[in-house]
């Protein structure tokens, strides 16, 4: 193999490996371009704002999900945690009229507590994450039912400041989306550039090796699940702020959307590889699909089918790219010459 070959191969490879998200960005761009060319209003200020509103909660949850999926786990309880947090903060807001900041903290705390519960069951109880969080999905939803019953928190019950936070924006970017972006950036740096973050990858990549390498599995897993829970809790507050109405079904079934976003975003479901940025793009892509289909006047009954087909297309495309990368890796060889 000549040096020139090796270098170009390696440059291409590095690009693909480092920016696995490129394919997603491309898909996103194509989708937006096509939709906008068919209906220019799709790019109007109002429409973009709506999109960002819609993406904020999924994006947030996708960040948390990424963190646990990297450890070879999964958190199916996020929908229920979101519901619980949304209902509890909603009630607290309507009862006390508290400010937005304390509400956000309350949501974080509720979510973190739920996440800690998951973490304890998974790590100390040694229950597989899928089982544990499927269990808490039911249990926490049951708790929401108990708490909410058939009642509903209406927009008129919530303090106006909170609703303004839900609908307001700064320089055209909704507050909610800004919050989600901040979280995304923080999670991305944490996962990529801090030892604790890398430990999560290590745990997911090879749990046995992680034990041998002295990675504190318990502490890290707790961190991951608490983080996922806390972000779901925060998502609950954003949900309440955005919709203004909260009932016992808030966030019902959202877990599969979030898992889909993370997987489409290139996070390996068996842990160890993927980025928060990819997951965020996955969430954005799915939201854009959801929003573009009605705009394109696609028949109502076709929409779900198209979403499914696009998910399949996205993961297949991602696979194609990574297979080509692996092939390039093989010919590149493991030894430097």
């Amino acid at each position, binding site marked *: 193999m000549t040096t020139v070959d090796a270098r170009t191969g390696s440059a291409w490879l590095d690009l693909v490996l480092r920016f696995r998200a490129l394919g997603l960005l491309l898909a996103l761009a194509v989708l937006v371009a096509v939709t906008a060319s068919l209906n220019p209003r799709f790019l109007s200020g109002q429409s973009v704002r709506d999109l960002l509103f819609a993406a904020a909660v999924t994006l947030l949850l996708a960040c948390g999900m990424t963190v646990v999926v990297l450890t070879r786990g999964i958190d199916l309880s996020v929908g229920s945690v979101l519901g619980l947090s949304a209902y509890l903060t909603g009630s607290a807001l309507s009862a006390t009229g508290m400010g937005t900041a304390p509400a956000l903290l309350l949501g974080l705390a509720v979510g973190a507590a739920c996440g800690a519960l998951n973490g304890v069951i998974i790590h100390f109880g040694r229950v597989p994450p899928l089982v544990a969080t499927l269990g808490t999905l039911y249990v926490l939803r049951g708790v929401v039912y108990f708490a909410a019953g058939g009642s509903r928190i209406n927009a008129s019950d919530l303090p106006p400041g909170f609703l303004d936070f839900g609908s307001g924006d700064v320089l055209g970017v909704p507050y909610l989306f800004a919050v989600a972006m901040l979280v995304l950036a923080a999670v991305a740096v944490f996962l990529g550039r801090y030892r604790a973050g890398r430990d999560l990858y290590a745990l997911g*990549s090879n749990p046995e090796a992680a034990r041998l390498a002295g990675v504190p599995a318990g502490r890290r897993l707790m961190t991951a699940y608490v983080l996922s829970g806390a972000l779901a809790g925060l998502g609950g507050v954003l949900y309440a702020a955005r919709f203004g109405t909260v009932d016992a079904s808030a966030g019902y079934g959202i877990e599969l959307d979030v898992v889909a976003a993370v997987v489409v975003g290139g996070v390996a479901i068996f842990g160890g590889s993927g980025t928060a940025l990819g997951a965020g793009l996955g969430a954005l892509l799915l939201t854009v699909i959801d929003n573009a289909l009605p705009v394109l006047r696609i028949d109502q009954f076709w929409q779900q089918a198209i979403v499914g087909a696009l998910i399949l297309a996205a993961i297949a495309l991602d696979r194609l790219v990574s297979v080509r990368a692996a092939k390039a*890796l093989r010919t590149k060889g493991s030894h430097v010459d």
Partner: protein
Amino acid sequence: MSALPDPAPPPVVSLAGVAKSFGAVRALRGADLDLHAGEAHALVGENGAGKSTLIKVLAGLYRPDAGTVALDGEPVAFADTAAAMDAGIAVIYQEPALFGDFTVAENLFVGRQPKGRFGLIDRAAMRRDAAAIFARLGVPIDPDRPAKGLSIADQQLVEIAKAISRRARVLVMDEPTAALSGVEVERLFKVVRALREDGAAVLFISHRFDEVEALCQRVTVMRDGAHVSTDLLADVTVEQLVRRMVGRELGAMFPKQEVEPGEAVLEVEGLTREGLCRDVSFTVRAGEIVALAGLVGAGRSEVVQAVFGIEGRDAGRVRVGGRELAPGDPRAAMRAGVALVPEDRRQQGLLLDLSIVRNATITRRNALARFGFLTGGAERRAARDWSARLHVKHGGLGNAAGTLSGGNQQKVVLAKWLATGPKVLIVDEPTRGIDVGTKAEVHRLLSGLAADGVAVLMVSSELLEVLGMADRVLVMREGRIAGELSRAEATEESVMLLATGQEAAL
């Protein structure tokens, strides 16, 4: 106890009366070991003697049921591996445990990555440090490639680099050389000697006595989980050690039977896999043992994997008994009577969570079925027979294969392939991690099979094994066959010359 006068300072590490059981299996029952600064100490014993378990106790992975671990004379109880690492103990485990998704460089520094500003990981520094360590070991592994896909030997080299980079006071190595060939071993020893001279205590586990003699000053023998003896190496002979290990006399080491080769059974022509091997041609005849020798990474495993069909091929033909084998179809190869004992027993050989019975009989699941149904009896009988033949030391045939010691795992992998009664037996590092006693057993087995007309293709990095067992030696270098040597021509020098392409580096 040892009658040696202890040097003045207390041993760096001292294990006394350590016991450890796994369910009904008593892996350790009163093991003792002292390690001194500036000394390389060998630990030898049969497969399943408890060597790996002992070092896992030392590494903080297992908590002993009884006995004490002392550091500099002070008793300690490590809560986990991190605690042992903090105390200056670095361990190379028997089975490489890398993070496939990390780069090689990051693998070296998990949990202790160099930090830069704001506590962020300094990736440039990490790469630099990794490159420096590999340069010191003389290993040409690219620090930026992911660890996934590294050959078992490269994995072991990464593990070695990882342990050495810790600059530990105590360096423990559990069969680090099992997959390495002479050149890499010599480089490794050079580095280890330097560390020892700087005052580190080294514990070295190996089944290769030449290596033990080359590196170590003292040797401890273990049997059945207990301490047998500790001596200066200069005071004991290999025969004495072996007798203490196995408790009996051994027969000939390489019990090669002379066989008149029959017809060509396995014919490989122009086999090529892009970037891995090129234009490889050879034949193996009935009753013949052909060795495929070469340095680590020369592409030997790649060749046999393509022959067996577990990997595809880009060009070339494989014939067994005159009939062409379809590429990429191991089932066809098995039907044609080919068996492959793969090099990586944990990844490629074993179903670690399943029972020994299942592992030993999975290759014969169809043959053992009656009217298409398996009720378990036939499988258990077959497994019992084979584990007896290969002296598999186990706590019960229903136990998971993952609970076996390294060497015993290797025996199970051998059993599951020998049981198929192959016409062509391909073995890739067949005795990796197997103790001397059983190694002789395996050699006798291979030899016997050849005598029965089986064509045997053996990949081995152990030169003595190659020279002792092979009728012909094919030497590979950089993916090509560099030359062929008859049994008479094959010597350490002639093989190494072909393998390295220059005057032997030994």
